[in-house]
């Protein structure tokens, strides 16, 4: 057994608020005579550029702006910086700058948003430059001290060497001098073939505390004198709080205050959360539910189904030829309608945030996927200017897109504002979390495929009807009303491009936005688009009397990267060799979040309805692989998320409210249902794709296509739970 390994993750970044409210990273600026300012970290160590702090003992602190929520990009981003920095990886630690500090320094750490599998792919260039900049400055400082040209010095493993004279020094020894130098205007990044750390499956930097209970999540934040709040928001979205009878709970133990939160919610503040929750449950509340109380899953389904009709308006997302004319004149046509429900993220840690408001300051401690959005929410809810606000990020107990939203941050501030000087931790119950998600959008899809007399696919009409995320969350990003994100996986080009060539193609979206609030969700639009397209591809192959893999291959000649990952899974699963007795295969491919992915499943089915998923093979081409061990975990994990969604996911609406309330009615896969996932990485280089989400897209269609192979039955709606199909 090991001794306790000292946590590699810089604990200060996580307990910053619990130890010293308001402590920041940078505590001072040295203004040296005639040189640039030196920015110092809280312990006095100098910054060598914004991304790197070097301590005298050679410890390197790498700043991470994106959020770690399990996906491993904290470690991957540190690898990117360390690769260029040429530092000793065993002495690397990380810390989160706060959004307030970043804003005060003209957003020196760039975008904090951590979603869309962008953590690495959209910051890889400037964080590597951050590492390279620091290396150049450290080498220059050593060269200056030795009075030799910097070009004669090299750096490796935090040691700088001047080969001609045989002298060496370390980063820690020259850090002070380096910090006083003017950073180089431009730096050259390494050729990928020279990478030593990028591409290596090094261990995560945040594991130890996650095994001892020491890791601080939002739910664990403690501040001196802190109270706890439980909240209930109107269960009908869009409804309002009418009244509550505070007197009824006045004598309950621990209760300190009952507060209205905006127009829609009420919170009980108490000494402990258990007291707050118990009192909240006893509080009589009257809601003004409004017209949305008439909405049900049935009424939504009916409205979406109407949108499938050609006569209804729709946005065109991808088009070539004349699909409608080709279908009208075709020798044979195939039609099918699929649907996908609302789904909750169900992060293991329910939403929460801790806020401390005083007349001239407002600070929040929370897990967030977007520190800057949380910061903006604090400004807005507190009414204070940026220099008087900040957000201290802590570890997220899951994100999956949910913690990109800031509703819970806003609520915490609105509560704390009513109790100035007292820190208040707001924690949602699981029931509140289920009732107030930002759900995977609901859609239906009608697809029509047409063949010529020789069974060649000549036309495809793909008509979505349903919800737009951007309409609700970022209307400014709509393009003349159209939501481009709705076409993830079936788009003409970009980071989620369609992988088939069909001579006459029409992909369109009849936008219909029910009152249930949608949100980005792990994989989100790729998930349903991949089910629709890839299951329908199987239907088309069947209609043409062709093997599903061969049928696809014929349409993919102009899409070599899509084809390469499909071929990789086909080969690995042994598509051309018979499956074991009683075992059936399904296959699927899609592009999402900049990466090409494919999946193949081997399943058996008993009694026509009990599915055992024996084996999954998944391939991904994300361009570059920063940490293969983490990519493997993301791919395996994405099948848990994707298959949980397929088998169990699904939030239904009754009287305007979500009906599911906890894991008993919204189940998630367990270990006994977990298939063996074999990951095939085929990085082709030259681009940077995402990893956390794309493979979810192929999880469900691969299994559904295998289910058809096993039973001859097509399943066209999710979740399987509603059709009495279960895990064996």
């Amino acid at each position, binding site marked *: 057994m090991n001794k306790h390994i000292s946590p590699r993750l810089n604990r200060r970044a996580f307990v910053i608020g619990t130890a010293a409210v308001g402590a920041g990273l940078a505590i001072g600026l040295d203004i040296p005579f005639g040189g640039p300012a030196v920015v110092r970290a809280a312990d006095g160590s100098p910054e060598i550029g914004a991304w790197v702090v070097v301590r005298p003992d050679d410890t390197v602190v790498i700043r991470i702006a994106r959020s770690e929520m*399990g996906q491993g990009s904290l470690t991957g981003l540190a690898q990117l910086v360390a690769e260029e920095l040429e530092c000793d990886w065993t002495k690397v630690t990380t810390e989160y700058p706060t959004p307030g500090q970043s804003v005060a320094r003209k957003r020196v750490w760039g975008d904090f948003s951590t979603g869309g599998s962008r953590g690495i792919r959209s910051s890889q260039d400037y964080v590597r430059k951050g590492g390279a900049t620091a290396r150049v400055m450290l080498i220059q400082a050593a060269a200056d001290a030795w009075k030799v040209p910097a070009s004669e010095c090299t750096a490796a493993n935090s040691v700088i060497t001047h080969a001609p004279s045989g002298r060496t020094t370390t980063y820690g020894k020259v850090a002070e001098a380096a910090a006083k130098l003017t950073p180089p205007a431009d730096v050259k990044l390494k050729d990928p073939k020279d990478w030593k750390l990028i591409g290596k499956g090094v261990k995560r930097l945040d594991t130890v505390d996650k095994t001892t209970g020491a890791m601080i999540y939002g739910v664990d934040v403690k501040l001196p004198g802190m109270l706890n709040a439980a909240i209930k928001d109107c269960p009908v979205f869009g409804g309002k709080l009418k009244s509550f009878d505070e007197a009824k709970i006045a004598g309950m133990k621990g209760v300190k205050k009952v507060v209205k939160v905006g127009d829609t919610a009420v919170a009980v503040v108490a000494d402990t959360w258990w007291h707050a929750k118990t009192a909240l449950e006893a509080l009589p509340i009257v809601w003004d539910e409004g017209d949305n109380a008439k909405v049900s899953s049935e009424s939504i389904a009916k409205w979406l189904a109407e949108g499938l009709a050609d006569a209804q308006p729709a946005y065109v997302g991808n088009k070539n030829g004349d699909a409608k004319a080709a279908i009208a004149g075709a020798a044979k046509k195939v039609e099918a309608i699929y649907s996908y429900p609302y789904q909750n993220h169900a992060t*293991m840690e329910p939403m929460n945030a801790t806020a401390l408001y005083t007349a001239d300051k407002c600070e929040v401690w929370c897990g967030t996927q977007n520190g800057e959005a949380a910061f903006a929410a604090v400004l807005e809810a507190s009414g204070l200017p940026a220099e008087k606000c900040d957000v201290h990020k802590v570890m997220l107990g899951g994100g999956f897109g949910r913690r990109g939203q800031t509703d819970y941050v806003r609520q915490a501030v609105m509560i704390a504002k009513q109790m100035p000087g007292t820190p208040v931790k707001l924690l949602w119950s699981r029931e509140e979390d289920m009732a107030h998600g930002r759900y995977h959008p609901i859609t239906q899809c009608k697809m029509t495929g047409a063949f010529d007399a020789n069974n060649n696919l000549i036309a495809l009409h793909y008509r979505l009807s349903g919800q737009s995320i951007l309409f609700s969350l970022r209307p400014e990003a709509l393009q003349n009303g159209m939501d481009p994100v709705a076409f993830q996986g079936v788009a003409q080009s970009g980071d989620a491009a369609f992988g088939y060539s069909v001579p006459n193609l029409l992909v369109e979206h009849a936008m219909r936005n029910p009152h249930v609030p949608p949100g980005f969700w792990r994989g989100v639009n790729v998930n349903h688009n991949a089910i629709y397209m890839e299951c329908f591809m199987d239907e088309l192959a069947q209609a043409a009397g062709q093997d599903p893999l061969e049928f696809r291959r014929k349409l993919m000649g102009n899409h070599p990267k899509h084809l390469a990952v499909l071929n990789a899974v086909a080969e690995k699963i042994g598509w051309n060799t018979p499956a074991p007795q009683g075992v059936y295969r399904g296959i699927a491919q899609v592009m999402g979040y900049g990466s090409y992915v494919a999946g193949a499943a081997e399943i058996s089915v008993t009694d026509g309805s009990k599915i055992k998923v024996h084996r999954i093979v998944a391939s991904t081409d994300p361009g570059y692989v920063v940490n293969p061990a983490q990519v493997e975990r993301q791919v395996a994990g994405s099948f848990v998320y994707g298959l*949980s969604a397929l088998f169990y996911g699904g939030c239904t609406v009754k009287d305007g409210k979500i009906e599911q309330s906890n894991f008993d009615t919204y189940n998630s896969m367990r270990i006994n249902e977990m298939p063996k996932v074999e990951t095939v990485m085929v990085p082709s280089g030259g681009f940077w794709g995402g990893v956390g989400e794309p493979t979810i897209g192929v999880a469900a269609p691969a299994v559904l296509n295998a289910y058809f192979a096993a039973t001859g039955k097509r399943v066209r709606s999710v979740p399987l739970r509603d059709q009495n199909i279960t895990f064996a």
Partner: protein
Amino acid sequence: MANLTINGKTLTLDVEPDTPLLWAIRENAGLTGTKYGCGIAQCGACTVHIDGVAMRSCGISVSEAEGKKITTIEGLASGDTLHKVQDAWIAQDVPQCGYCQSGMIMAVAALLNEKPKPTDADIDEAITNICRCGTFQQVREAIHTIASA
């Protein structure tokens, strides 16, 4: 008031007897490694050992836990020496977000105590914790690694 023996220490806590043990551990004893996930004994994030048996602390009242030996994730190591499950979790980089892992580790430690060499079927039966990140493959591998050590 209640007397609870947690991680070898008997604590006198100002807590009502019907309070779920989970909240007494987190809020009254101040040990936050044990997590709240569902409150209805479904997800297993709050798993602790009661007299050596893995149990979901959200479903046990303080009065039921009095007089029993309660072990939380903070008490699993022996002094500075980590438990073999924690060691294996670190060696195999099991956690992703990590929120469910305290409960997962406690459940696995209890399983291995009872069955030092569990089969896949034993694991399937005993480990019913939810992990939304999807660490099951690494959990299973780590259990087998410990069992074969």
